[in-house]
């Protein structure tokens, strides 16, 4: 295992130690595995919490910040946080106006967050929940609710965070978060695996000249595995999957996220973006705030994902509103 770490079992806690030491202006530890904004809970503002397994920075914890999340519960690498930590995160985010649980659609996370919601309810904290389920490779469009949540999460965080910042009530923040989640479609492509520290060996193996189209951010199997294609062919196929799911309508305003799963450098992302942007524009879309970089990752996995987020007059200003965390400033 080629990683810079101490004891594999200490990976997550030491990572959080470093994160909070480096950026106390963004991240405050509420419990061993719970991080909040230093100014949370903010009285009268709807709180937004998320959570999930570690190994995806900036997802999930990294997006705690102004105009984004109020608190986050952190699990082991690729494993759900505990119900208890989720409940703690909800409490830390609760400024009296209710709390939205906004996270990715993974079985364990869903059960735990639901249970944490029940606990919060017993404590008279009103909560709602929105699941991000944007990975078009993980289920057909007639079973959208079964899709995994991947990089589209970033748009949902940003838009919900701005809605909460604007002082909207819980029901509105929840509606807008759901609308943002529904507006996102993502597909990934992997070139290499990654290693969960406590497992010590790669999550899967893939040939020296192979890629996997449609793979998930924990290395879940994709649509096909085969010979590595040229960048333009990869981009073309990824766009094909995304646009088959939601075709472009003339006049569409889209944000595009070309995301590295970790090891893939920005140089390669820009090569992809160079192909993607003109195709979308030729189809009649206008691109708004393109994002190119590492927004949702799988540690040292090589690969990319492409997300399209279809905006409207309600979502666009929320996406463009100011926000800041250690990993992203808008």
């Amino acid at each position, binding site marked *: 295992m080629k990683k810079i770490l101490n004891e594999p079992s200490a990976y997550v806690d030491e990572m959080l130690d470093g994160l909070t030491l480096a950026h106390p202006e963004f991240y405050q530890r509420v419990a061993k595995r719970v991080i909040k904004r230093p100014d949370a809970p903010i009285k009268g503002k709807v709180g937004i919490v998320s959570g999930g397994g570690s190994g995806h920075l900036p997802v999930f914890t990294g997006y705690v910040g102004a105009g984004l999340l109020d608190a986050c519960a952190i*699990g082991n690498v690729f*494993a*759900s*946080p*505990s*119900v*208890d*930590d989720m*409940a703690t995160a909800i409490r830390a985010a609760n400024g009296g106006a209710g709390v939205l649980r906004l996270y990715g659609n993974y*079985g*364990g996370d869903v*059960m*735990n967050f*639901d*249970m944490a919601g*029940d*606990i919060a309810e017993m404590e008279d904290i009103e909560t709602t929940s929105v699941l991000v389920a944007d990975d078009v490779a993980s289920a057909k469009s007639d079973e959208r609710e079964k899709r995994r949540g991947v990089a589209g999460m970033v748009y949902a965080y940003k838009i919900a965070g701005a809605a909460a910042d604007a002082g909207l009530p819980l029901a509105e923040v929840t509606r807008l978060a759901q609308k943002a989640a529904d507006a996102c479609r993502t597909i990934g492509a992997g070139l290499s695996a990654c290693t969960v520290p406590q497992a010590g060996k790669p999550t899967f193996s893939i040939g020296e000249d192979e890629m996997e189209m449609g793979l998930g951010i924990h290395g*879940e*199997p994709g649509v096909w595995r085969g010979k590595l294609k040229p960048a333009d062919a990869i981009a073309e196929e990824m766009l094909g999957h995304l646009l088959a799911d939601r075709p472009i309508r003339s006049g569409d305003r889209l944000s595009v996220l070309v995301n590295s799963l970790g090891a893939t450098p920005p140089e390669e992302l820009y090569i992809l973006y160079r192909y993607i942007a003109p195709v979308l524009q030729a189809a009649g879309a206008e691109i708004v705030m393109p994002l190119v970089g590492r927004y949702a990752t799988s540690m040292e996995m090589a690969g990319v994902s492409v997300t399209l987020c279809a905006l409207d007059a309600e979502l666009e200003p929320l996406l463009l509103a100011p926000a800041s965390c250690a990993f992203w400033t808008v």
Partner: protein
Amino acid sequence: MTAMALTTETLRTAGSRLAAAADTLAPELNTLDGQIGDGDLGVTLQLATGAMAEVLLGLPDDVGLAFMQCAQAVTRAASSSFGTLLATALMSAAKATKGRTDVPWTDIPALLAGAIASIKQRGKADLGDKTVLDALEAARLATDGLDDPAAQLAAADAAIAEALEAFCGRPNKVGRARIWADRTIGLDDPGMVALKRIVESLRG
């Protein structure tokens, strides 16, 4: 287990038996779960029972509150599905027994029914999906009408064994194993085996 009714003391005895057995049970459950899932079921059982063990001494006499503290201990320690479902079951028992210090043994099937309902709701699974639910349902049916804990455990044990046999040849329909459903034919569901081992441990 020969007391007249289920009390907080029963929870203490049961809890410490499970905690004592967990280390021995873990490897088998990890291996089973590793064949179709992520191989952490044994660890989950260790974490859950270990966390419960820490609260046993201080449990209140109110059986409902005692169940609740056990549930909370599990939520703190075990975040894999089985841990969350165990906590869900304990919480449903807590709600059903709140305010009582003695719960008659004949209430056991009803408590199991409550747990089954809560787990169904939490995990969005049904009977027949080849999960721990099917083992719980077998136990519920087997204990119905019995009013002695030893007899109840013996009946549950036998019923779960039968359920395991009945489900072995069928595919898993929920949880991690769902994606590989066909590969699960011929394998026991790890969560069902876990419940069998729990019952065996309680029998002593």
